Structures are given as C-alpha cells and as structure tokens.
C-alpha cells in the first residue's frame, strides 16, 4: 500500500502543481472550471490509452518512440503556454482592472482557456500513463492485493490534490492586481522547464547533441528525486544534473517569452483603450 501511495503521490503531484498554477492563472475567468475539468478528463483518458499502447510506442522509431512522443507533447505544451503568456500580456491588465465578465475578454479568454486546458491534459497524460502502468503491475501481482492498491492509490491522489490546492490557495493570496504578473512569471518558468525537459529527452535518446552531460551537479544540495526536488522540477524545471542543450532550451524559452510578453504588454499600454479595440477589430 505504501508503494502505491508514494508512486501515485509523486506522479499526481507533478501534474497537480501544474493544474494549481493554471487555476490561479485563470482566477476569475468565467467557465474555467469546465475547461480545466475537460483537460483533466482528456488527460486521464489519454493516459489510459497511452498505457495500453505503451508497448507499441516503446518499440516505435527503433526504440526511441517514447522519447520522441514525450518531447513532442512537451513542445505542444510550451507553445500553448507561450500563447497564454502573450495573451495575458495583452489582456491581463483589462481583466484585472475592469469587470471580469467583459464579453470581448471572455471570448478571447476562451481561446486562452483552451490552450491551458491542453496543457492540463498533457501534464496529466504524461504522469498518468506511468501511474496506470504501475498500478496495473501491482494489481496483476499477488504481492499486494487490489484493495491495498486502491487505498494507497486513492490516498496518493488525495494527498497530491491537497498539496496542489495549497499552492493554488497560496497564489490567490496575492492581490488581484499582481496575480497576473505572478502567474505569468510562473507560467513562463513552467514553459522554460518543459522546453528544457523536451531537449533533455531528445538528448537522452541520442537524437540531439547533449552539449555536455552535466553542466553542474547540485544533487547533494537538492536531489531531483526528493519531493521538493520533484515539485521544483515540475514547477520551474529544476534539474540537479542538467545537460547543456537542456539549459540552452530553458534559457532561450525564458528570454523569448519574457521579451514577447514585455513587447505585447507595453504595446497595449501605449495605445489608448479605444484605439486598441478598433485596431484589433480591424485586424480580425
């Protein structure tokens, strides 16, 4: 039971922290609950499907199908998160300062919600397929009965959900005015971390050069396998032994996204509100 609890807690926490950030980032956006739950359900279904086809995937592409698939979905998530950061740069201030139910903002907001729902789905898909395979293995062995597995698994999910909820509540303590800045910064770091992981995954399959295997080693200081290490890994892409290409992808994404959100954000500030509405309407 303890084994199920630990593995399930670990994997669900990684996905749960991302859901926590997404929920905080969309605080006050109407119907976000629907989108986020949709993302969760899609992720769970996808994870089960992925677990069922794990054998086929691992044999694909001369044995590196898993890595290519993981890198691909991570890159999709990075694009979705970037889209959100840019959208927030344009609309975050309106959302924070004006009534949150502005019809126009909601319509554009739905597109950003779709992007974030996809990120939730991808996070759950990645961690979930491992949980499914692990629990299936436990259930198939006589070592641990199905009841103990269900109890352990259920407890693991509940604990991880609770910690993620704490992160969400903690973020909501930030005043609304600064919340968008804070969640945008978190989402930028999340995207950078995922880009780094995508690069590291491709390097581990020898598909791209690693540019040096261990740029540094901080495993003695904070192991990536500890709970805190894992949480930081999921949140900001912490790695105790990063490869060069991982750091490069991380840095590039961080700089690009910061520049993009800054550019779109200041563009918004300079124009009077009316003019901006007009130019956006004509652009559509």
């Amino acid at each position, binding site marked *: 039971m303890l*084994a199920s609890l630990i*593995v399930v807690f670990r994997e669900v926490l990684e996905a749960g922290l991302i859901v926590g950030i997404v929920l905080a980032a969309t605080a006050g956006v109407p119907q976000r609950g629907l989108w986020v739950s949709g993302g969760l359900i899609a992720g769970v279904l996808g994870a089960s499907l992925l*677990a069922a086809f*794990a*054998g086929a995937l*691992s*044999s694909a592409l*001369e*044995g*590196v199908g*898993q*890595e290519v698939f993981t890198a691909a979905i991570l890159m999709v998530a990075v694009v979705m998160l970037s889209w959100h950061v840019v959208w927030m740069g344009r609309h975050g201030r309106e959302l924070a300062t004006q009534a949150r139910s502005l019809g126009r903002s909601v319509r554009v907001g739905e597109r950003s919600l779709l992007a974030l729902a996809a990120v939730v789905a991808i996070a759950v898909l990645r961690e979930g397929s*491992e949980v499914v*395979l*692990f629990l*299936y*293995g436990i259930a*198939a*062995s006589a070592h641990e009965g199905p009841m103990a597995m269900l109890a352990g698994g259920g407890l693991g999910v509940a604990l991880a959900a609770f910690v993620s909820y704490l992160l969400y509540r903690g973020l909501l303590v930030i005043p609304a005015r600064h919340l968008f800045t804070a969640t945008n910064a978190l989402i930028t770091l999340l995207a950078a971390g995922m880009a780094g992981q995508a690069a*590291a995954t491709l390097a*581990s*399959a*020898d*598909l*791209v*050069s*690693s540019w040096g*295997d*261990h740029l540094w080693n901080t*495993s003695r200081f904070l*192991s*990536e*396998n500890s709970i805190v290490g894992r949480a930081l890994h999921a949140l900001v892409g912490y790695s105790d*032994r990063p*490869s060069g*290409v991982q750091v490069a992808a991380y840095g590039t994404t961080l700089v690009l996204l910061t520049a993009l959100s800054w550019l779109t954000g200041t563009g918004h500030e300079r124009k009077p509100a009316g003019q901006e509405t007009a130019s956006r309407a004509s652009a559509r």
Partner: protein
Amino acid sequence: MRRQLCLLAGLLACMLPAGAAMAEDFHIAIKDHRFTPTRLEVPAGVKFRLMVSNQDDTAEEFESTELDREKLVAPGKEIPVFLGPLDAGEYKFFGDFHQDTAQGVLVAK
C-alpha cells in the same frame, strides 16, 4: 535572408549528435522484477546502448538518478537506453515500479 538561413542550418547542425563511435551493445534483462546481471561492466569514455529487455508480464521503468535516465519498458519488450560517454565509476540503476527487488549497478571502466 540567405545568411540567416545559413546560420539557422549551422545551428541545427550543431544540434545533431556528434558522430562519436558507438561501442557494442550491452544487455540486461528484467525477470521476476530483478535485473540480470545485477552488476554489469561497461567501457568508460564511449557511447553505447544498454538494451533492457523486460521478460515479465508487467511494465517496468528503468531508472537511474546517477545516469539521469528514466525509461518505460513494456512487458515482453526490449528498449535501448543511450548512455555515455561515462566517467569511470559505479552507477546505480533500479526498476522504479519494483524498487524493493529491481536494483543493479553499472561499472564503467
């Protein structure tokens, strides 16, 4: 424009793995949630593939903190884990789904 394209192509070329010679493959098997062999000698300083075959009916995850690898091995499948060049030394690995029994160590010499 052409210059930018050249630069981009150059950058992409940098990304390709260096064509360092790949040593022969090494093999380990997982059976009854244990590795055989549990201790495997591999060459230091070269790239090689560690072929991990899972002979159990359930999935296992080949994982090593020290080697920074984590890869699922579906039941009845054999997957390559790309490693090296390693410094001489010992590198522990384990089966993430059965850590109580699935433990092993790579010795790079």
